[in-house]
């Protein structure tokens, strides 16, 4: 807790003969983080991938392209034995590809035919209402044929030229099919030019246009049927092979990782050196397993970590299971450095606390709790699960604060005796109990706490929570700094802030008259000088942030109040403005109620979540946290679909 896992630098040296076994073992135990070898000016060379690397990656590419073509998604499948898989992999992969190729080829040819039919139909369109067999447009010795569009009726003009003609005219599309004697061709062509004649190519088929179109239509239908049956076949293949594809993708990925591992390690002619990191508590496991798998032919040694190497240490969180989901929030900002305090456990407390303080409503807590559990159950994704867990923690806190505040979907649960008489609560007979007078603003502290009637007190209280949280940040900063640069630097950089704060508090006490004001002022000046020494000019510039940061925590009450007001406005519109009109209005009232609260529920995730997050990131983290550690990613693979 509060510290990343302790890491040990280990160097594995051995003869190349046992490289294969070593890589296998390292991959299996999945605890060793390989430090990539950098070849520059050294007698060692980067290793060559194992012989099977090319073939494995070829198969992997083949498999993945099939998998993406079929749209295969990760899912729960029965675990398969790797031996069986390897034995049948080649044959099954080839068969799968053949089957798919056959089907897709057939489908493609059908699709090409469909396109041909489409274009034929388009070409035939102008001739639809001209009942001439298309073969009669061609093959005359003494006749000229004009087929195309004109801008109007040409029959009268044509009669002036010749009587030996045959004309079909479609007045809708202005298409003509004109047959004249060859010797009149030129004059007719001139006349047609006046009518803006534009020739249309006559499709090279036989039969009347309408017949051909009807045939094409029926062919199209039968092709469509065939295509859909092919598609069914393909999805059938997907069903049958998806287990195989997922499992063999896994074993091929593992194999490819192993076979490319030598690219990350240093080798000489006969030896190899693997440099890397292992969690300190697993170092013995590493040496033991390597020794037994290679028969003691590799040598593992522990290396001292020099101070300047600390930046390179991969960082692995070391948190208890309950606080694990909050690592997501840490990763969103930055992974802690190796020597730094890991505040995940603190966020585990303060993030849900702040969220609950802001929202604090039994109704929304129950709705969101149900939602979170539902999503967690339905969505099987490693990215969503921690987020839902965080949401669940937050809702538990919201529920507790909801009971404390006595609120349900914006309705107060208890009745309240206010200046305007008694406001009834949702639960009949549940009376607000006066506890004691608040020192601020003459407000009465009650159970349940009515936030709307305790604004002044809560604003001051939340600002004080802010001061506490910020100072926790400074203390953590002090510890970090002490570890890195010693006590003096820590005192000047982080301790000075606390001294300044003490000075301010004493000065205020002095102002009120408890002690001489000079004491506070003196301590403030001391703190101020320390600050300038520690942080330079940046310190005094940031001094006002003490005030703005702690006032920033008043959002804990302010954002909460805005959420209450939205909820109670929805209730007001639904039940006091629409509902009393009776009849159909009651339905509207319920609709307004449902949609209003649905909207506010969505806002209830975003607003408190973002504000609680911001208080962590901006107000808290800036006091101590640097981040930027390297991720610990051990060489290995977490099997999902297969087992050895």
């Amino acid at each position, binding site marked *: 807790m509060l510290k990343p896992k302790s890491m040990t630098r280990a160097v594995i040296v051995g003869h190349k003969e046992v490289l294969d076994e070593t890589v296998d073992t390292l991959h299996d135990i999945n605890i060793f983080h390989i430090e990539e070898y950098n070849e520059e000016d050294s007698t060692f060379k980067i290793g060559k991938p194992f012989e099977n690397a090319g073939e494995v990656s070829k198969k992997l590419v083949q498999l993945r392209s099939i998998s993406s073509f079929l749209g295969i998604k990760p899912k729960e499948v029965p675990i398969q034995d790797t031996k069986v898989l390897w034995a049948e992999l080649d044959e099954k992969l080839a068969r799968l590809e053949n089957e798919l190729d056959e089907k897709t080829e057939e489908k493609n040819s059908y699709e090409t035919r469909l396109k041909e039919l489409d274009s034929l139909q388009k070409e035939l369109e102008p001739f639809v209402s001209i009942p001439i067999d298309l073969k009669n447009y061609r093959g005359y010795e003494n006749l000229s044929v004009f087929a195309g569009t004109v801008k109007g009726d040409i029959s009268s003009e044509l009669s002036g030229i010749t009587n030996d003609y045959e004309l079909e005219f479609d007045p809708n599309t202005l298409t003509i099919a004109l047959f004249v004697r060859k010797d009149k061709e030129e004059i007719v062509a001139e006349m047609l030019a006046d009518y803006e004649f534009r020739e249309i190519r006559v499709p090279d088929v036989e039969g009347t246009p309408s017949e051909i179109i009807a045939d094409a239509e029926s062919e199209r239908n039968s092709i469509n049927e065939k295509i859909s049956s092919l598609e069914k076949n393909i999805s059938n293949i997907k069903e049958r092979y998806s287990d195989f594809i997922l499992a063999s993708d896994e074993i091929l990925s593992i194999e490819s990782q192993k076979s490319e591992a030598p690219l990350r390690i240093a080798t000489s002619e006969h030896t190899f050196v693997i440099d890397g990191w292992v969690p300190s508590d697993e170092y013995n496991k590493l040496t033991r397993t390597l020794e037994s798998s290679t028969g003691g032919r590799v040598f593992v040694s522990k290396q001292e970590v020099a101070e300047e190497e600390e930046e390179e240490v991969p960082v692995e969180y070391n948190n208890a299971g309950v606080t694990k989901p909050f690592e997501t929030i840490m990763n969103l*900002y*930055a992974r802690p450095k190796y020597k730094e305090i890991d505040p995940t456990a603190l966020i585990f407390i303060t993030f849900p606390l702040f969220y609950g303080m802001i929202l604090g409503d039994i109704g929304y807590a129950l709705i969101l709790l149900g939602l979170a559990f539902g999503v967690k159950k339905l969505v099987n994704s490693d990215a969503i699960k921690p987020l839902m867990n965080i949401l669940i923690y937050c809702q538990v806190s919201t529920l507790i604060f909801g009971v404390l505040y006595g609120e349900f979907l914006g309705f107060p649960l208890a009745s309240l005796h206010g200046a305007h008489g008694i406001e009834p609560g949702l639960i009949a007979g549940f009376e607000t109990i006066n506890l004691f007078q608040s020192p601020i603003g003459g407000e009465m502290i009650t159970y349940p706490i009515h936030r709307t009637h305790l*604004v002044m007190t809560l*604003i001051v209280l939340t600002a004080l929570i802010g001061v506490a949280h910020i100072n926790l940040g400074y203390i953590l900063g002090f510890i970090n700094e002490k570890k890195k640069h010693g006590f003096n630097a820590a005192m000047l950089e982080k301790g000075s802030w606390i001294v300044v704060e003490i000075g301010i508090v004493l000065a205020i006490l002095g102002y009120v008259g408890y002690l001489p004001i000079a004491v506070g002022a003196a301590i403030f000046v001391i703190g101020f000088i320390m600050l300038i020494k520690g942080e330079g000019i940046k310190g005094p510039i940031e001094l006002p942030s003490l005030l703005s940061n702690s006032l920033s925590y*008043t959002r804990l009450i*302010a954002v909460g*109040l805005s959420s209450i007001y939205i909820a109670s406005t929805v209730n007001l519109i639904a039940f006091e403005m629409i509902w009393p009109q009776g009849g159909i209005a009651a339905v509207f009232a319920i609709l307004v109620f449902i949609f209003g609260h649905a909207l506010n529920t969505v806002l209830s995730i975003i607003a408190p979540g973002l504000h609680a997050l*911001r208080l962590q*990131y901006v107000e808290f983290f800036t006091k101590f946290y640097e981040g930027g550690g390297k991720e610990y990613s051990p060489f290995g693979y977490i099997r999902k679909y297969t087992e050895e």
Partner: protein
Amino acid sequence: MVGEEAITMMDPAGLKAIGAGLAVGLAGLGSGLAEKDIGAAAVGAMAENEALFGKGLILTVIPETIVIFGLVVALLIS
């Protein structure tokens, strides 16, 4: 002698409400103006490098305190 001028009084409660509204509204505008450029730049940076999400979010929400101050002032007025 003072004439009988009609003395018009503004309702103090109404003035309070106007003040509270102005406090929230203007503060909201202020933080909106401040956040728009930062937000756009942050999204741009995130498009280049997704790891900048945390930093981008922080920089974007820094001016948000302004509207919280407005909200607090409004609560204090009303």
